[in-house]
């Protein structure tokens, strides 16, 4: 019984991003990389499901550069049993080809449950998880905040505008994790030592990036200086007017 979790190596969300000379990628010098934060919820979910089932393996899968072995090692240190590294020589890969490669690798594992983060912290396309489900012919539930499994049925809560949607699906299925699904565990020192003995298998594939191309990256506009419209209660009407008419936020 395999519980698969897919992770992506992304720049630390605190990193100061500089755009590289080519104008369409980021300059990685001095940038720390981490597993995408939503993926950590996915790892924890996979570990919890395996613990609950009392059997099976958690397999972490990553399509990414050679350095992503560090992120996979972190999954192993948190408790994943083994990892698969699909080494990618391309700096950028569009969601469709990412999903095609992952689906092929995951399909061979005949997974019971597959977990993704709801979106990656870098490009944030939110596409890979659902595309993989589609390619595997499995149901998918995205952005889940709770998950309960009874037999071959899973029940999940999803936060939707103004409420909660409760979904039930048969498993095998694919889930994408929203913040709040669980509290990801930290890799303990023993876990880190144990991870040294676990294997990261490198799988070959051939799939060139296709379709989507990043044409250019632009930094967000400089933030405008703030404005003080007055002081005390007298300033309130003017503030309300500006919020309504200029900022258009109320």
């Amino acid at each position, binding site marked *: 019984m395999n519980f698969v979790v897919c992770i992506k190596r992304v720049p*630390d969300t605190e990193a100061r991003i500089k755009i590289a000379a080519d104008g369409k990628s980021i300059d990685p010098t001095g940038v720390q990389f981490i597993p995408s934060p939503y993926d950590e919820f996915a790892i924890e979910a996979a570990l919890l499901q395996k613990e609950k089932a009392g059997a099976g393996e958690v397999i972490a899968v990553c399509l990414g550069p050679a350095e992503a072995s560090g992120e996979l*090692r972190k999954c192993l*240190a948190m408790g994943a049993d083994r990892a698969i590294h699909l080494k990618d020589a391309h700096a950028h890969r569009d969601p469709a080809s990412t999903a095609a490669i992952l689906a092929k690798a995951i399909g061979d594992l005949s997974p019971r449950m597959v977990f993704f983060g709801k979106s990656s912290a870098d490009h944030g396309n939110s596409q890979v998880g659902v595309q993989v489900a589609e390619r595997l012919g499995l149901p998918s539930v995205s952005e889940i905040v709770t998950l309960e499994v009874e037999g071959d049925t899973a029940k999940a809560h999803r936060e939707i505008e103004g409420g909660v949607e409760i979904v039930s699906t048969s498993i095998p299925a694919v889930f994408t994790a929203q913040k709040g699904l669980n509290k990801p565990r*930290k890799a303990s020192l023993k876990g*880190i030592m144990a991870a040294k003995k676990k294997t990261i298998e490198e799988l070959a594939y051939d799939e060139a990036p296709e379709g989507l191309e990043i044409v250019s990256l632009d930094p967000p506009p400089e933030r405008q200086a703030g404005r003080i419209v007055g002081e005390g209660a007298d300033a309130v009407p003017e503030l309300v007017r500006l919020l309504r008419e200029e900022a258009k936020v109320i």
Partner: protein
Amino acid sequence: MAKFTGVDFLDMDSLLSEEELLVRSSVREFVSEEVLPIIEHHNRAGTFPKELIPPVAELGLLGANIEGYDCAGLNNVAYGLIMQELERGDSGLRSFVSVQGALVMYPIYAFGSEAHREQWLPALAKGEKIGCFGLTEPDFGSNPGGMLTRARKDGNDWVLNGTKMWITNGSISDVAVIWAKNDEGEVEGFLVESDRKGFSSSDVEGKFSLRASVTSELYLEDVRIPEANRLPGCQGLKSALKCLSQARYGIAWGGIGAAMACYDEALRYSQTRIQFDKPIASFQLVQRKLVEMLNEITKAQFMTLQLGRLKDANKVRPAQISLAKRNNVAMALDIAREARDVLGANGICDEYQSGRHMCNLESVKTYEGTHDIHTLIIGHAITGIPAYE
């Protein structure tokens, strides 16, 4: 507060293994999420954050460089990085972990019997039992060889009498490693359970430093313990000093952590604090302060990494550890003071960390061999002439 991402101007990370980086990141996250939100409260109240013992133990931070006995068995560089990250949070928390690991678990591991190891190490690693290390006395600090505490052999028992002072974890301990002189005047190490008759303690009050750490006085009045409580592998005061070498090694890394916390705080503050219509970071004098901090941290990092690699190769000499302890704690204290200055009036309030680190580091400068005692140790090593007395 913005997430702490470390200080690494010369890409020291490229010299660290995947495992060392993972260890650091786990402890860094732990400190950010679980230590920093509560530490000011404890520092103000003068209380030790006992609630951190279970998560610290669960992560495996107690005796992390010991092999077996439920310990993680990390190398010394990974161990050092743990100390760095803990002290980035608070020197008091780092002191707790140092004492438990380097001054209690290490002597049990190195000088204890197999029975001692099996009885104590797993429980100490799990944080179920707490230990302390009693060497210093009211009248013997830098010169522990003069200690007055005595162990008199009585049949198959030992009877201990004396007072130990400035003992970290003293009153919260289940077991104390006590150093005492036998009838021949040789120093022996003993494991004294805190519930032995005649063993008592009281806490040092009024500290302005290491307020989130317990510092106690221990009283031994005719404390009777069996021969089985003696650490059989000890060879006089030298063994006590070996424990100190372990702890000092960790403190050398710890100093870097405290310095990083202060530098990080001063840097961020200087970029947002506006005076004369500009961030204060735009003034040359402020930039110079920040640059000096970064400069000293960077030097300390590489010196200490090399020290760790030597220790892992079993090639480290005590005077080399003295060099790093002496340098790193002094530089951290200087950086804490300078960071406090960059923060202006805000620097004197505990909403910011630099003032706390500054006060803490005064203890760290004194304990485990004062700054000047390390000067003498290094002086002895390079001239061959001891100048202690």
